[in-house]
Protein backbone atom coordinates (compact mmCIF):
# COMPACT_ATOMS: atom_id res chain seq x y z
CA UNK A 1 0.00 0.00 0.00
CA UNK A 2 2.84 2.38 0.77
CA UNK A 3 4.25 1.58 -2.61
CA UNK A 4 0.92 2.41 -4.26
CA UNK A 5 0.78 5.69 -2.36
CA UNK A 6 4.25 6.60 -3.57
CA UNK A 7 3.24 5.93 -7.19
CA UNK A 8 0.01 7.87 -6.73
CA UNK A 9 2.01 10.84 -5.44
CA UNK A 10 4.21 10.80 -8.51
CA UNK A 11 1.13 10.40 -10.71
CA UNK A 12 -0.75 13.35 -9.23
CA UNK A 13 2.28 15.64 -9.30
CA UNK A 14 2.92 14.68 -12.92
CA UNK A 15 -0.64 15.61 -13.85
CA UNK A 16 -0.08 19.07 -12.38
CA UNK A 17 3.22 19.47 -14.19
CA UNK A 18 1.71 18.20 -17.45
CA UNK A 19 -1.04 20.79 -17.30
CA UNK A 20 1.30 23.61 -16.29
CA UNK A 21 4.03 22.98 -18.82
CA UNK A 22 1.70 23.52 -21.78
CA UNK A 23 0.05 26.89 -21.73
CA UNK A 24 -0.18 29.05 -24.80
CA UNK A 25 0.90 27.08 -27.83
CA UNK A 26 0.81 28.84 -31.23
CA UNK A 27 -1.23 26.77 -33.67
CA UNK A 28 1.78 26.21 -35.94
CA UNK A 29 3.29 24.14 -33.14
CA UNK A 30 0.25 21.97 -32.40
CA UNK A 31 1.34 19.21 -34.71
CA UNK A 32 5.03 19.15 -33.69
CA UNK A 33 4.02 19.21 -30.02
CA UNK A 34 1.65 16.31 -30.52
CA UNK A 35 4.31 14.41 -32.37
CA UNK A 36 6.93 15.20 -29.74
CA UNK A 37 4.78 14.05 -26.85
CA UNK A 38 3.92 11.00 -28.95
CA UNK A 39 7.63 10.19 -28.98
CA UNK A 40 7.90 10.76 -25.22
CA UNK A 41 5.28 8.16 -24.38
CA UNK A 42 7.53 5.83 -26.35
CA UNK A 43 9.30 5.49 -23.00
CA UNK A 44 7.07 2.41 -22.78
CA UNK A 45 10.08 0.82 -24.51
CA UNK A 46 11.86 0.89 -21.16
CA UNK A 47 8.89 -0.90 -19.59
CA UNK A 48 8.87 -3.43 -22.40
CA UNK A 49 12.60 -4.11 -21.90
CA UNK A 50 12.00 -4.64 -18.18
CA UNK A 51 9.15 -7.12 -18.62
CA UNK A 52 10.99 -9.01 -21.35
CA UNK A 53 14.13 -9.03 -19.22
CA UNK A 54 12.23 -10.68 -16.37
CA UNK A 55 10.14 -13.01 -18.52
CA UNK A 56 10.30 -16.74 -17.83
CA UNK A 57 7.38 -18.38 -19.65
CA UNK A 58 7.02 -18.53 -23.42
CA UNK A 59 3.92 -16.27 -23.60
CA UNK A 60 5.76 -13.65 -21.59
CA UNK A 61 8.77 -13.81 -23.91
CA UNK A 62 6.61 -13.55 -27.03
CA UNK A 63 4.51 -10.67 -25.71
CA UNK A 64 7.55 -8.93 -24.25
CA UNK A 65 9.46 -9.13 -27.52
CA UNK A 66 6.47 -7.79 -29.40
CA UNK A 67 6.18 -4.95 -26.88
CA UNK A 68 9.86 -4.06 -27.36
CA UNK A 69 9.33 -4.00 -31.13
CA UNK A 70 6.27 -1.74 -30.91
CA UNK A 71 7.90 0.48 -28.31
CA UNK A 72 10.97 0.94 -30.52
CA UNK A 73 8.78 1.91 -33.46
CA UNK A 74 7.05 4.47 -31.24
CA UNK A 75 10.23 6.02 -29.85
CA UNK A 76 12.36 6.07 -32.99
CA UNK A 77 9.59 6.98 -35.41
CA UNK A 78 8.19 9.62 -33.09
CA UNK A 79 11.46 11.44 -32.60
CA UNK A 80 12.54 11.29 -36.24
CA UNK A 81 9.21 12.62 -37.50
CA UNK A 82 9.19 15.41 -34.92
CA UNK A 83 12.73 16.41 -35.80
CA UNK A 84 11.84 16.42 -39.47
CA UNK A 85 8.92 18.75 -38.84
CA UNK A 86 10.97 21.07 -36.68
CA UNK A 87 14.05 21.34 -38.84
CA UNK A 88 11.95 23.34 -41.29
CA UNK A 89 11.44 26.07 -38.71
CA UNK A 90 15.13 26.39 -38.02
CA UNK A 91 15.99 30.01 -37.30
CA UNK A 92 13.03 31.33 -39.25
CA UNK A 93 11.09 33.07 -36.47
CA UNK A 94 14.01 35.22 -35.38
CA UNK A 95 15.39 36.14 -38.78
CA UNK A 96 12.95 36.11 -41.66
CA UNK A 97 14.79 35.36 -44.87
CA UNK A 98 12.97 37.78 -47.17
CA UNK A 99 14.36 40.74 -45.24
CA UNK A 100 17.78 41.12 -46.87
CA UNK A 101 16.43 40.91 -50.42
CA UNK A 102 14.07 43.84 -49.96
Amino acid at each position, binding site marked *: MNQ*LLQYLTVFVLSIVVGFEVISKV*PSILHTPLMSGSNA*IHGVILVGAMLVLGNATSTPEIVLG*TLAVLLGTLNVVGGFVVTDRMLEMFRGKPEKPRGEDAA
Partner: protein
Amino acid sequence: MSRGTFIDLCYLIAALTFIVALKGLSSPRHARQGNLVAIGGMTLAVAVTFAQPHLAHLPWMIAAMAVGAAVAVPTSRFVKMTAIPQLVAAFNGVGGGAAALVSITGYLALSRTTVVCSGGFLSECHSTGGVQDVAVYKILEVVLGVVIGTVSFAGSAIAFAKLQELMTGRPVTYPGQQQANAVIAAAVVAIAATLLVTGSVVWLWLLLVLSAVLGVAFVLPVGGADVPVLISLLNSFTGLAVAASGFTIGSNLLIIAGTLVGASGILLTRLMSSAMGRSLPNILFSAFGAVTTASGATEKGDRSVRAGTAEDVGVLLAYAHKVVVIPGYGLAVAQAQHVVRELVDELHRRGVETFFAIHPVAGRMPGHMNVLLAEANVPYDELKEMDEANPELPTADVALVVGANDTVNPAADTEPGSPIYGMPIIHADDAANVVFLKRSMRPGFAGIDNDLLYDPKTVLLFGDAKDTLTKLLAAVKAA
Protein backbone atom coordinates in the same frame (compact mmCIF):
# COMPACT_ATOMS: atom_id res chain seq x y z
CA MET B 1 26.30 4.13 -4.94
CA SER B 2 24.68 0.84 -5.84
CA ARG B 3 23.88 0.02 -9.42
CA GLY B 4 20.14 0.22 -8.73
CA THR B 5 20.44 3.73 -7.28
CA PHE B 6 22.50 4.87 -10.23
CA ILE B 7 19.93 3.54 -12.69
CA ASP B 8 17.09 5.22 -10.81
CA LEU B 9 19.00 8.51 -10.82
CA CYS B 10 19.40 8.26 -14.58
CA TYR B 11 15.66 7.61 -14.90
CA LEU B 12 15.04 10.74 -12.84
CA ILE B 13 17.22 12.76 -15.21
CA ALA B 14 15.34 11.30 -18.17
CA ALA B 15 12.00 12.27 -16.60
CA LEU B 16 13.31 15.82 -16.15
CA THR B 17 14.38 16.05 -19.79
CA PHE B 18 10.83 15.13 -20.84
CA ILE B 19 9.42 18.04 -18.85
CA VAL B 20 12.00 20.41 -20.33
CA ALA B 21 11.23 19.01 -23.80
CA LEU B 22 7.48 19.61 -23.52
CA LYS B 23 8.15 23.13 -22.35
CA GLY B 24 10.49 23.72 -25.29
CA LEU B 25 8.14 22.18 -27.83
CA SER B 26 5.46 24.72 -27.01
CA SER B 27 7.54 27.72 -28.07
CA PRO B 28 8.73 28.23 -31.67
CA ARG B 29 12.16 29.34 -30.52
CA HIS B 30 13.00 26.29 -28.46
CA ALA B 31 11.00 23.58 -30.16
CA ARG B 32 13.91 21.91 -31.89
CA GLN B 33 16.17 21.93 -28.83
CA GLY B 34 13.23 20.59 -26.84
CA ASN B 35 12.98 17.58 -29.08
CA LEU B 36 16.74 16.99 -28.97
CA VAL B 37 16.70 17.15 -25.17
CA ALA B 38 13.96 14.50 -25.11
CA ILE B 39 15.98 12.30 -27.49
CA GLY B 40 18.93 12.61 -25.12
CA GLY B 41 16.82 11.67 -22.12
CA MET B 42 15.26 8.73 -23.89
CA THR B 43 18.62 7.43 -25.05
CA LEU B 44 19.91 7.64 -21.48
CA ALA B 45 16.87 5.80 -20.13
CA VAL B 46 17.12 2.98 -22.66
CA ALA B 47 20.90 2.69 -22.26
CA VAL B 48 20.84 2.37 -18.47
CA THR B 49 18.02 -0.16 -18.70
CA PHE B 50 20.56 -2.50 -20.27
CA ALA B 51 22.54 -2.15 -17.04
CA GLN B 52 19.63 -3.56 -14.98
CA PRO B 53 20.75 -6.68 -13.14
CA HIS B 54 19.53 -10.08 -14.34
CA LEU B 55 18.16 -8.86 -17.64
CA ALA B 56 17.28 -11.98 -19.62
CA HIS B 57 16.52 -12.59 -23.30
CA LEU B 58 18.94 -9.93 -24.52
CA PRO B 59 19.19 -11.41 -28.03
CA TRP B 60 15.42 -11.14 -28.48
CA MET B 61 15.43 -7.65 -27.05
CA ILE B 62 18.21 -6.39 -29.29
CA ALA B 63 16.74 -8.08 -32.35
CA ALA B 64 13.31 -6.52 -31.75
CA MET B 65 14.91 -3.09 -31.26
CA ALA B 66 17.00 -3.47 -34.40
CA VAL B 67 13.96 -4.44 -36.47
CA GLY B 68 11.91 -1.60 -34.98
CA ALA B 69 14.58 0.99 -35.71
CA ALA B 70 15.19 -0.42 -39.19
CA VAL B 71 11.51 0.03 -40.00
CA ALA B 72 10.90 3.33 -38.22
CA VAL B 73 13.84 5.41 -39.44
CA PRO B 74 13.36 5.07 -43.20
CA THR B 75 9.57 5.29 -42.88
CA SER B 76 9.65 8.52 -40.94
CA ARG B 77 12.58 9.97 -42.89
CA PHE B 78 11.35 9.39 -46.42
CA VAL B 79 7.58 9.43 -46.22
CA LYS B 80 6.09 12.46 -47.98
CA MET B 81 5.38 15.47 -45.75
CA THR B 82 1.72 15.19 -46.70
CA ALA B 83 1.54 11.75 -45.07
CA ILE B 84 2.92 12.95 -41.73
CA PRO B 85 -0.45 13.00 -39.92
CA GLN B 86 -1.14 9.32 -40.55
CA LEU B 87 2.43 8.51 -39.56
CA VAL B 88 1.90 10.20 -36.20
CA ALA B 89 -1.31 8.17 -35.84
CA ALA B 90 0.57 4.96 -36.58
CA PHE B 91 3.42 5.64 -34.14
CA ASN B 92 0.90 6.58 -31.49
CA GLY B 93 -1.04 3.36 -32.08
CA VAL B 94 1.99 1.10 -31.67
CA GLY B 95 2.80 2.94 -28.45
CA GLY B 96 -0.68 2.13 -27.13
CA GLY B 97 -0.28 -1.47 -28.23
CA ALA B 98 3.08 -1.70 -26.48
CA ALA B 99 1.56 -0.33 -23.26
CA ALA B 100 -1.23 -2.93 -23.37
CA LEU B 101 1.31 -5.71 -23.96
CA VAL B 102 3.54 -4.52 -21.12
CA SER B 103 0.54 -4.52 -18.78
CA ILE B 104 -0.47 -8.04 -19.83
CA THR B 105 3.06 -9.38 -19.57
CA GLY B 106 3.45 -7.69 -16.21
CA TYR B 107 0.27 -9.39 -15.06
CA LEU B 108 1.39 -12.80 -16.34
CA ALA B 109 4.57 -12.38 -14.33
CA LEU B 110 2.60 -11.32 -11.25
CA SER B 111 0.14 -14.21 -11.38
CA ARG B 112 3.02 -16.61 -11.98
CA THR B 113 4.60 -15.78 -8.64
CA THR B 114 1.55 -14.88 -6.62
CA VAL B 115 -1.95 -16.02 -5.78
CA VAL B 116 -4.80 -13.67 -6.48
CA CYS B 117 -6.51 -12.58 -3.31
CA SER B 118 -10.25 -12.21 -3.15
CA GLY B 119 -10.18 -9.35 -0.68
CA GLY B 120 -12.02 -6.10 -1.10
CA PHE B 121 -11.08 -3.17 -3.27
CA LEU B 122 -7.60 -1.82 -2.63
CA SER B 123 -7.00 -4.39 0.10
CA GLU B 124 -3.44 -5.37 0.63
CA CYS B 125 -3.09 -9.12 0.72
CA HIS B 126 -0.97 -10.91 3.25
CA SER B 127 1.69 -13.35 2.25
CA THR B 128 0.53 -16.90 2.57
CA GLY B 129 3.38 -19.31 2.95
CA GLY B 130 5.93 -17.46 0.83
CA VAL B 131 3.51 -16.75 -2.02
CA GLN B 132 2.15 -13.23 -2.00
CA ASP B 133 -1.32 -12.56 -3.30
CA VAL B 134 -2.05 -10.10 -6.09
CA ALA B 135 -3.99 -7.22 -4.63
CA VAL B 136 -7.10 -6.09 -6.47
CA TYR B 137 -5.62 -2.68 -7.10
CA LYS B 138 -2.82 -4.40 -9.00
CA ILE B 139 -5.38 -6.00 -11.29
CA LEU B 140 -7.11 -2.66 -11.69
CA GLU B 141 -3.85 -1.12 -12.90
CA VAL B 142 -3.52 -3.89 -15.45
CA VAL B 143 -7.10 -3.46 -16.58
CA LEU B 144 -6.58 0.27 -17.12
CA GLY B 145 -3.35 -0.27 -19.03
CA VAL B 146 -4.90 -2.91 -21.28
CA VAL B 147 -8.18 -1.08 -21.97
CA ILE B 148 -6.72 2.39 -22.59
CA GLY B 149 -3.73 1.07 -24.53
CA THR B 150 -5.84 -1.16 -26.75
CA VAL B 151 -8.46 1.51 -27.42
CA SER B 152 -5.63 3.80 -28.46
CA PHE B 153 -4.09 1.10 -30.66
CA ALA B 154 -7.33 0.18 -32.46
CA GLY B 155 -8.50 3.79 -32.67
CA SER B 156 -5.20 4.94 -34.16
CA ALA B 157 -5.35 2.13 -36.69
CA ILE B 158 -8.74 3.37 -37.89
CA ALA B 159 -7.54 6.99 -37.88
CA PHE B 160 -4.55 5.88 -39.95
CA ALA B 161 -6.84 4.09 -42.42
CA LYS B 162 -9.01 7.19 -42.71
CA LEU B 163 -6.10 9.55 -43.38
CA GLN B 164 -4.36 7.11 -45.72
CA GLU B 165 -7.67 6.82 -47.56
CA LEU B 166 -7.75 3.06 -47.09
CA MET B 167 -11.33 3.67 -46.03
CA THR B 168 -13.69 6.61 -46.29
CA GLY B 169 -12.50 9.68 -44.41
CA ARG B 170 -16.12 10.59 -43.72
CA PRO B 171 -17.83 9.67 -40.45
CA VAL B 172 -19.16 6.14 -40.50
CA THR B 173 -22.62 6.06 -38.94
CA TYR B 174 -25.46 3.60 -38.70
CA PRO B 175 -28.79 3.61 -36.85
CA GLY B 176 -28.48 2.86 -33.16
CA GLN B 177 -24.75 3.56 -33.17
CA GLN B 178 -24.70 5.42 -29.85
CA GLN B 179 -26.59 2.56 -28.19
CA ALA B 180 -24.33 -0.07 -29.77
CA ASN B 181 -21.26 1.80 -28.52
CA ALA B 182 -22.79 2.06 -25.07
CA VAL B 183 -23.34 -1.72 -25.06
CA ILE B 184 -19.73 -2.38 -26.05
CA ALA B 185 -18.49 -0.01 -23.35
CA ALA B 186 -20.73 -1.70 -20.79
CA ALA B 187 -19.40 -5.11 -21.83
CA VAL B 188 -15.83 -3.87 -21.35
CA VAL B 189 -16.71 -2.68 -17.86
CA ALA B 190 -18.44 -5.98 -17.04
CA ILE B 191 -15.46 -8.06 -18.17
CA ALA B 192 -13.10 -5.75 -16.29
CA ALA B 193 -15.19 -6.27 -13.15
CA THR B 194 -15.17 -10.05 -13.59
CA LEU B 195 -11.42 -9.93 -14.02
CA LEU B 196 -11.06 -7.93 -10.82
CA VAL B 197 -12.98 -10.59 -8.91
CA THR B 198 -11.58 -13.75 -10.47
CA GLY B 199 -8.13 -12.60 -11.59
CA SER B 200 -8.30 -15.21 -14.35
CA VAL B 201 -6.09 -14.61 -17.37
CA VAL B 202 -8.81 -15.82 -19.76
CA TRP B 203 -10.85 -12.73 -18.97
CA LEU B 204 -7.79 -10.61 -19.67
CA TRP B 205 -7.63 -11.89 -23.25
CA LEU B 206 -11.34 -11.28 -23.67
CA LEU B 207 -10.85 -7.77 -22.33
CA LEU B 208 -8.10 -7.21 -24.89
CA VAL B 209 -10.35 -8.22 -27.79
CA LEU B 210 -13.33 -6.23 -26.62
CA SER B 211 -11.23 -3.12 -25.95
CA ALA B 212 -10.07 -3.29 -29.57
CA VAL B 213 -13.72 -3.40 -30.67
CA LEU B 214 -14.44 -0.41 -28.44
CA GLY B 215 -11.53 1.52 -29.96
CA VAL B 216 -12.84 0.94 -33.48
CA ALA B 217 -16.42 1.79 -32.54
CA PHE B 218 -15.30 4.96 -30.76
CA VAL B 219 -13.39 6.27 -33.78
CA LEU B 220 -15.67 5.28 -36.68
CA PRO B 221 -18.16 8.16 -36.28
CA VAL B 222 -15.39 10.77 -36.22
CA GLY B 223 -14.38 11.94 -39.65
CA GLY B 224 -13.18 14.69 -41.89
CA ALA B 225 -11.28 17.57 -40.38
CA ASP B 226 -11.86 16.16 -36.89
CA VAL B 227 -9.47 13.24 -37.28
CA PRO B 228 -6.36 15.22 -36.21
CA VAL B 229 -8.08 16.28 -32.99
CA LEU B 230 -8.95 12.65 -32.43
CA ILE B 231 -5.31 11.61 -32.91
CA SER B 232 -4.28 14.15 -30.32
CA LEU B 233 -6.82 12.67 -27.91
CA LEU B 234 -5.60 9.11 -28.60
CA ASN B 235 -2.06 10.37 -28.06
CA SER B 236 -3.12 11.49 -24.62
CA PHE B 237 -4.76 8.07 -24.03
CA THR B 238 -1.55 6.28 -24.87
CA GLY B 239 0.22 8.46 -22.33
CA LEU B 240 -2.24 7.35 -19.65
CA ALA B 241 -1.89 3.71 -20.70
CA VAL B 242 1.88 4.04 -20.32
CA ALA B 243 1.36 5.51 -16.85
CA ALA B 244 -0.90 2.56 -15.94
CA SER B 245 1.80 0.14 -17.14
CA GLY B 246 4.21 2.09 -14.95
CA PHE B 247 2.03 1.34 -11.90
CA THR B 248 1.94 -2.35 -12.83
CA ILE B 249 5.65 -2.86 -13.28
CA GLY B 250 6.59 -0.32 -10.63
CA SER B 251 8.40 2.27 -12.72
CA ASN B 252 8.37 5.93 -11.74
CA LEU B 253 9.80 6.86 -15.13
CA LEU B 254 6.83 5.39 -16.98
CA ILE B 255 4.37 6.97 -14.57
CA ILE B 256 5.94 10.42 -14.95
CA ALA B 257 6.40 10.37 -18.72
CA GLY B 258 3.03 8.77 -19.41
CA THR B 259 1.14 11.13 -17.14
CA LEU B 260 2.92 14.18 -18.57
CA VAL B 261 1.80 13.20 -22.05
CA GLY B 262 -1.67 12.29 -20.83
CA ALA B 263 -2.23 15.62 -19.09
CA SER B 264 -0.58 17.88 -21.66
CA GLY B 265 -2.25 15.88 -24.45
CA ILE B 266 -5.72 16.60 -23.08
CA LEU B 267 -4.85 20.28 -22.97
CA LEU B 268 -3.44 20.22 -26.50
CA THR B 269 -6.57 18.44 -27.72
CA ARG B 270 -8.69 21.22 -26.27
CA LEU B 271 -6.49 23.87 -27.92
CA MET B 272 -6.88 22.11 -31.25
CA SER B 273 -10.62 21.75 -31.04
CA SER B 274 -11.06 25.37 -30.01
CA ALA B 275 -8.94 26.39 -33.03
CA MET B 276 -11.76 24.82 -35.04
CA GLY B 277 -14.42 26.55 -32.97
CA ARG B 278 -15.83 23.29 -31.64
CA SER B 279 -15.98 21.55 -28.33
CA LEU B 280 -14.40 18.15 -27.79
CA PRO B 281 -17.64 16.27 -26.99
CA ASN B 282 -19.12 17.82 -30.12
CA ILE B 283 -16.26 16.41 -32.20
CA LEU B 284 -16.45 12.96 -30.66
CA PHE B 285 -20.16 12.36 -30.47
CA SER B 286 -21.92 14.43 -33.12
CA ALA B 287 -21.14 12.52 -36.29
CA PHE B 288 -20.16 15.28 -38.66
CA GLY B 289 -21.75 13.73 -41.73
CA ALA B 290 -25.29 13.28 -40.48
CA VAL B 291 -26.25 16.89 -41.19
CA THR B 292 -24.45 17.04 -44.53
CA THR B 293 -26.61 14.49 -46.24
CA ALA B 294 -29.71 16.34 -45.05
CA SER B 295 -28.86 19.87 -46.18
CA GLY B 296 -26.06 19.24 -48.65
CA ALA B 297 -26.02 19.03 -52.40
CA THR B 298 -29.70 18.24 -52.98
CA GLU B 299 -31.26 21.61 -53.69
CA LYS B 300 -28.09 23.20 -55.05
CA GLY B 301 -27.44 20.54 -57.65
CA ASP B 302 -27.30 22.46 -60.89
CA ARG B 303 -26.04 25.96 -60.35
CA SER B 304 -23.46 27.17 -62.77
CA VAL B 305 -19.88 28.03 -62.04
CA ARG B 306 -17.47 30.21 -63.98
CA ALA B 307 -14.44 28.34 -65.22
CA GLY B 308 -11.56 30.53 -66.37
CA THR B 309 -8.27 30.13 -68.18
CA ALA B 310 -4.80 30.46 -66.70
CA GLU B 311 -4.10 33.37 -69.07
CA ASP B 312 -7.05 35.44 -67.81
CA VAL B 313 -6.22 34.79 -64.20
CA GLY B 314 -2.51 35.46 -64.85
CA VAL B 315 -3.38 38.96 -66.05
CA LEU B 316 -5.71 39.47 -63.11
CA LEU B 317 -2.90 38.59 -60.71
CA ALA B 318 -0.18 40.53 -62.50
CA TYR B 319 -2.09 43.78 -62.36
CA ALA B 320 -3.52 43.40 -58.88
CA HIS B 321 -2.29 45.48 -55.96
CA LYS B 322 -2.80 42.91 -53.31
CA VAL B 323 -3.08 39.13 -53.63
CA VAL B 324 -3.79 36.77 -50.76
CA VAL B 325 -2.89 33.13 -51.32
CA ILE B 326 -4.99 30.71 -49.27
CA PRO B 327 -3.41 27.27 -49.39
CA GLY B 328 -5.16 24.05 -48.43
CA TYR B 329 -4.60 20.35 -48.49
CA GLY B 330 -4.94 20.23 -52.31
CA LEU B 331 -1.70 22.23 -52.55
CA ALA B 332 0.05 19.65 -50.44
CA VAL B 333 -1.35 16.71 -52.39
CA ALA B 334 -0.18 18.23 -55.67
CA GLN B 335 3.26 18.92 -54.12
CA ALA B 336 2.81 22.45 -55.42
CA GLN B 337 4.41 24.34 -52.54
CA HIS B 338 7.54 25.16 -54.58
CA VAL B 339 5.62 26.42 -57.63
CA VAL B 340 3.37 28.56 -55.49
CA ARG B 341 6.46 30.08 -53.95
CA GLU B 342 7.82 30.92 -57.39
CA LEU B 343 4.51 32.48 -58.33
CA VAL B 344 4.51 34.63 -55.20
CA ASP B 345 8.14 35.65 -55.86
CA GLU B 346 7.23 36.66 -59.39
CA LEU B 347 4.31 38.74 -58.09
CA HIS B 348 6.65 40.40 -55.59
CA ARG B 349 9.02 41.25 -58.42
CA ARG B 350 6.15 42.97 -60.16
CA GLY B 351 5.38 44.95 -57.02
CA VAL B 352 2.21 43.08 -56.11
CA GLU B 353 1.74 42.83 -52.37
CA THR B 354 1.31 39.12 -51.74
CA PHE B 355 1.13 36.94 -48.66
CA PHE B 356 -0.19 33.59 -47.53
CA ALA B 357 -3.21 33.33 -45.25
CA ILE B 358 -2.98 30.16 -43.21
CA HIS B 359 -6.04 28.70 -41.57
CA PRO B 360 -5.27 27.00 -38.23
CA VAL B 361 -6.36 23.64 -39.63
CA ALA B 362 -5.19 24.08 -43.21
CA GLY B 363 -3.79 20.81 -44.42
CA ARG B 364 -4.68 17.84 -42.34
CA MET B 365 -3.40 19.05 -39.00
CA PRO B 366 -2.87 22.35 -37.26
CA GLY B 367 0.45 23.76 -38.43
CA HIS B 368 0.72 21.25 -41.26
CA MET B 369 0.58 23.94 -43.94
CA ASN B 370 3.27 26.04 -42.24
CA VAL B 371 5.56 23.03 -42.29
CA LEU B 372 4.92 22.39 -45.98
CA LEU B 373 5.50 26.02 -46.97
CA ALA B 374 8.57 26.28 -44.77
CA GLU B 375 9.88 23.25 -46.67
CA ALA B 376 9.52 25.31 -49.86
CA ASN B 377 11.50 28.17 -48.23
CA VAL B 378 8.61 30.57 -47.98
CA PRO B 379 9.84 33.26 -45.56
CA TYR B 380 8.15 33.17 -42.20
CA ASP B 381 6.94 36.77 -42.45
CA GLU B 382 4.91 35.99 -45.58
CA LEU B 383 2.75 33.56 -43.63
CA LYS B 384 -0.11 35.24 -41.85
CA GLU B 385 -2.39 33.45 -39.47
CA MET B 386 -6.11 33.66 -39.97
CA ASP B 387 -6.78 36.41 -37.42
CA GLU B 388 -4.06 38.55 -38.94
CA ALA B 389 -5.12 37.88 -42.53
CA ASN B 390 -8.87 38.39 -42.31
CA PRO B 391 -8.77 42.20 -41.77
CA GLU B 392 -6.62 42.46 -44.92
CA LEU B 393 -8.97 40.57 -47.19
CA PRO B 394 -11.53 43.34 -47.86
CA THR B 395 -8.69 45.39 -49.39
CA ALA B 396 -7.35 42.48 -51.44
CA ASP B 397 -7.94 42.39 -55.17
CA VAL B 398 -7.60 38.66 -55.48
CA ALA B 399 -7.96 35.78 -53.07
CA LEU B 400 -6.16 32.84 -54.68
CA VAL B 401 -7.51 29.68 -53.08
CA VAL B 402 -5.18 26.77 -53.81
CA GLY B 403 -6.70 23.44 -52.95
CA ALA B 404 -8.63 24.73 -49.95
CA ASN B 405 -12.37 24.50 -49.55
CA ASP B 406 -13.86 24.07 -46.09
CA THR B 407 -11.58 26.70 -44.56
CA VAL B 408 -13.05 29.40 -46.84
CA ASN B 409 -16.63 28.15 -46.85
CA PRO B 410 -18.94 31.03 -45.87
CA ALA B 411 -21.51 28.46 -44.74
CA ALA B 412 -19.53 28.36 -41.49
CA ASP B 413 -20.84 31.88 -40.83
CA THR B 414 -24.18 31.93 -42.54
CA GLU B 415 -25.82 28.50 -42.36
CA PRO B 416 -26.63 27.35 -38.84
CA GLY B 417 -27.60 23.94 -40.28
CA SER B 418 -24.18 23.33 -41.76
CA PRO B 419 -21.89 20.84 -40.02
CA ILE B 420 -19.06 23.35 -40.09
CA TYR B 421 -21.21 26.17 -38.71
CA GLY B 422 -19.22 28.12 -36.15
CA MET B 423 -15.81 27.10 -37.46
CA PRO B 424 -13.68 30.22 -37.97
CA ILE B 425 -12.89 30.70 -41.65
CA ILE B 426 -10.65 32.82 -43.82
CA HIS B 427 -12.89 35.39 -45.47
CA ALA B 428 -11.88 34.85 -49.07
CA ASP B 429 -15.37 36.08 -49.93
CA ASP B 430 -14.35 39.59 -48.78
CA ALA B 431 -11.83 39.95 -51.59
CA ALA B 432 -12.82 41.66 -54.84
CA ASN B 433 -12.10 38.54 -56.86
CA VAL B 434 -11.83 34.93 -55.81
CA VAL B 435 -9.86 32.38 -57.78
CA PHE B 436 -10.26 28.73 -56.88
CA LEU B 437 -7.72 26.18 -58.03
CA LYS B 438 -9.52 22.87 -57.80
CA ARG B 439 -9.14 19.38 -59.12
CA SER B 440 -12.87 18.96 -59.57
CA MET B 441 -16.19 20.09 -58.20
CA ARG B 442 -15.89 17.47 -55.48
CA PRO B 443 -16.59 18.94 -52.05
CA GLY B 444 -13.79 19.25 -49.49
CA PHE B 445 -12.64 16.91 -46.77
CA ALA B 446 -15.71 17.59 -44.66
CA GLY B 447 -17.91 16.76 -47.63
CA ILE B 448 -19.82 20.04 -47.69
CA ASP B 449 -20.78 22.08 -50.70
CA ASN B 450 -19.26 25.57 -50.89
CA ASP B 451 -21.47 28.48 -51.96
CA LEU B 452 -18.46 30.62 -52.73
CA LEU B 453 -17.78 28.46 -55.78
CA TYR B 454 -21.02 29.68 -57.34
CA ASP B 455 -20.45 33.35 -56.51
CA PRO B 456 -20.34 35.59 -59.60
CA LYS B 457 -16.98 37.06 -58.54
CA THR B 458 -15.43 33.62 -58.39
CA VAL B 459 -13.37 32.08 -61.16
CA LEU B 460 -12.47 28.41 -61.14
CA LEU B 461 -9.36 26.88 -62.61
CA PHE B 462 -9.75 23.15 -62.83
CA GLY B 463 -6.85 20.77 -62.81
CA ASP B 464 -3.93 19.62 -60.73
CA ALA B 465 -2.77 22.53 -58.56
CA LYS B 466 0.85 22.16 -59.64
CA ASP B 467 0.06 22.23 -63.38
CA THR B 468 -2.32 25.13 -62.99
CA LEU B 469 0.18 27.12 -60.92
CA THR B 470 2.91 26.48 -63.48
CA LYS B 471 0.63 27.83 -66.22
CA LEU B 472 -0.31 30.78 -64.02
CA LEU B 473 3.35 31.55 -63.43
CA ALA B 474 4.00 31.57 -67.18
CA ALA B 475 0.92 33.74 -67.74
CA VAL B 476 2.03 36.25 -65.08
CA LYS B 477 5.51 36.41 -66.60
CA ALA B 478 4.00 37.02 -70.04
CA ALA B 479 1.57 39.67 -68.88
